[in-house]
């Protein structure tokens, strides 16, 4: 044996023990109350059951980080919680594993095969459904600026004359364009037809009106935990956000907040499996558990997002009050779901394909609009 090979094998011996630690899976999600619900709902149970360590990593959306990991050849993520738009873009660019849906994912507890048990068809071959959530807006009922009159429609959000104060909006175009068109009189179900036809300009004009209004003004949030914080601190009078985060602030933190469901955007959220991730096989097994009937129902125990499987809803309804937290105790969760009848009287259904197809144009227009505010 030459000296060099001896040295290499010695080095290998030294490194080997640190590589031989128990299997683990790195799951990337949006942080805050949402990641907590995923961790408690299916992450921890799976870890206990399988002995595989589940690590939770926070991010704020988008494909840039995973693209950078792939380009540099140092992939550290296994499973990512993404918008529908990003499953389409990522699948087109070959970042994610394509599923053979009914073979890869177990049937529901009701016996339905996976593809029937999920509410809606997947937007791409790389996606497996996770939750249904809502973009809506909320306000702080204690804010002195309301003076006894409270908003109850999307028009009110865009009406700084009646409700003077700063609005907090999502920092990228998604959700803002839809809200603006609904407030501008477009029927909620036709929003994306109008988008094709000069709708972006129309929406941005409506937003400009609000944001440059002497009694209005806009600030922007990028992490889901920010809108409730801004409402409680009085930084914003009204804030758009994700219903589960608002719900968390109201129920678990006792914040004096109320959600307005008129003009809400119903949106789906998905998991994807990174191609060539560090623990791809273990990750696939974990994903199968996460998206099983019990797994998805598990996260709804801790946050007001609807599970993607029909059979998970059965699990929940059979056992209401399903939601539980130390602060609030047991709460009936079904009326707080974004899909509850009272919350879906006037809603927009998110069209991820429109975003995937026109991503760059939308972002360019949005960024230029924001910088010139």
């Amino acid at each position, binding site marked *: 044996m030459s000296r060099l090979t001896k040295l290499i094998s010695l080095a290998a011996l030294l490194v080997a023990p640190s590589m031989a630690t128990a299997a683990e899976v790195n799951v990337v999600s949006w942080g805050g109350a949402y990641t907590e619900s995923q961790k408690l709902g299916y992450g921890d149970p799976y870890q206990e059951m399988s002995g595989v360590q589940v690590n939770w990593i926070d991010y704020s959306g988008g494909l840039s980080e995973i693209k950078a990991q792939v380009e540099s050849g140092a992939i550290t993520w296994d499973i990512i919680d993404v918008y529908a738009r990003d499953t389409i873009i990522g699948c*087109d660019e070959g970042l994610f594993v394509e599923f053979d849906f009914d073979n890869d994912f177990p049937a529901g507890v009701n016996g339905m095969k996976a593809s029937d048990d999920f509410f809606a068809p997947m937007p791409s071959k790389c996606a497996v459904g996770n939750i249904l959530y809502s973009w809506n807006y909320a306000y702080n009922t204690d804010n002195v600026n309301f003076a006894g009159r409270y908003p109850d429609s999307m028009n009110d959000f865009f009406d700084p004359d009646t409700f003077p104060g700063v609005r907090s909006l999502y920092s990228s175009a998604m959700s803002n364009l839809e809200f603006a068109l609904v407030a501008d009189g477009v029927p909620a179900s036709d929003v994306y037809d109008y988008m094709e036809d000069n709708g972006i300009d129309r929406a941005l004009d409506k937003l400009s009106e609000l944001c440059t209004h002497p009694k209005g003004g*806009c600030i922007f949030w990028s992490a889901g935990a920010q809108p409730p914080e801004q409402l409680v601190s*009085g*930084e914003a009078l009204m804030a758009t956000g994700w219903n589960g985060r608002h719900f968390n602030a109201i129920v678990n933190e006792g914040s004096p907040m109320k959600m307005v469901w008129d003009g809400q955007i119903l949106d789906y959220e998905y998991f994807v499996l990174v191609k060539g991730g560090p623990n791809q096989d273990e990750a696939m097994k974990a994903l199968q558990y996460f998206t099983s009937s019990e797994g998805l129902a598990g996260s709804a125990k801790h946050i007001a997002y609807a599970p993607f499987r029909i059979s998970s809803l059965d699990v929940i309804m059979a056992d209401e009050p399903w939601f539980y937290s130390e602060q609030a105790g047991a709460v009936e969760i079904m009326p707080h779901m974004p899909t509850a009848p009272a919350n879906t009287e006037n809603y927009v259904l998110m069209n991820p394909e429109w975003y995937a197809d026109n991503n760059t*144009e939308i972002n360019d227009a949005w960024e230029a609009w924001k*910088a010139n505010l």
Partner: protein
Amino acid sequence: MTAEIRTSDGELLSIKLKKVERRRRTTAFLLAAPLLFFIVFTYVIPIFQMLGRSIDNVQMNEFLSETHEVMQTWDGSEMPGEDVTSTFYYELKTAVENKYHGKIATRLNYEKGGFTSLIKKTSRKLENFDENGNFLEQFIDVHKKWGDIEYWLAMKRGTDAYHFRKYLTTFDFEQKFDGSIERIEEKKRINVTLWLRTIFVAVGVTFCCFILAYPISHLLSVLPTRYSNLLMICVLLPFWTSLLVRTSSWMVLLQKQGVLNDTLVSLGIVADESRLELMYNMTGTFIAMTQILLPFMVLPLYSVMKTISPSLMRAATSMGATPFHAFRKIYFPLTYPGISAGSILVFVLAIGYYITPALVGGAKGILISNRIAYHMQQSLDWSLATAMATVLLIAVLVVYWLYNKIVGIDNMRLG
């Protein structure tokens, strides 16, 4: 013949001296070599590689190499012929099979907006194509945009291996297909606004730092050591705290229900309904950045002021100068080296700032560095990001050069 001086081993002294000198230089170089290599390989080369991306389009060129080649014979005056469209069809088909059509779409979209949806829609319908001919018509059937010659011209241009168009975009200009250079439409202009705003913020923050730091530094330099040390710690303590912590602290202080507003309201200076807007605007950006960059102004000023003998001022007053006159004629000019060192430090740091302004300044706090980060991380248009970074780098070098011309770099003193 002059006597040659030789050393004890018989060599010429001058040659021996040169040898020794050379050996000493080699040793010195070898000692510094590891650091030099380290800097060159981990810093200089990567930076130039990155900057090279601002003109480099080689990858795109490889994706559609055959189409690019065929297009060289197409003059662009009318719609491309069957040779171009069929070549493009087959190359796009290969791209879809190997899953890099998304990259093609993204890259072509930098050339002309609308390409993302065009390529993606076309890719999905590619399997329905009749490969016997009439490719152009079939492309137009899939999407009417293919009937617009501009998209084909953009593709011809977009597959060039090298180009400088990103530098035009950096200043909101674009090159039309006939070669003329024009400003882009008003609604899409963004970069010039941001360049001006960045310079305004950098100059403004430098000025604020100077105004605040000058008296503090003077106080520090004249106080007895035990007091001045305490004051110095007060200046330096924030310097040792993480940038994010300091920025978030400012957010706590400045927000509407924050400490500052609460105090003003409880003192009755401001009414509860009309609390001051100190955050998510320029005010917040200036306050936070000034505080964060203040030590970079205080330290050079202090070290220069420390060396100014108090007897100079006493001498001036004893000769009849008023305190103001003595300050203006004697003390102030002596602090020039400190002022210039501090200003250039603060200015250069401020011009590249982006985390603090983005957090505290909201939409008004978007500076050119935020755009660079946006194109690096979000839009993934690395060519544009590096073009902007190059311009920023050159701007800083120009400031440095001007400074050297006007003040002279030898006059800069850090201590």
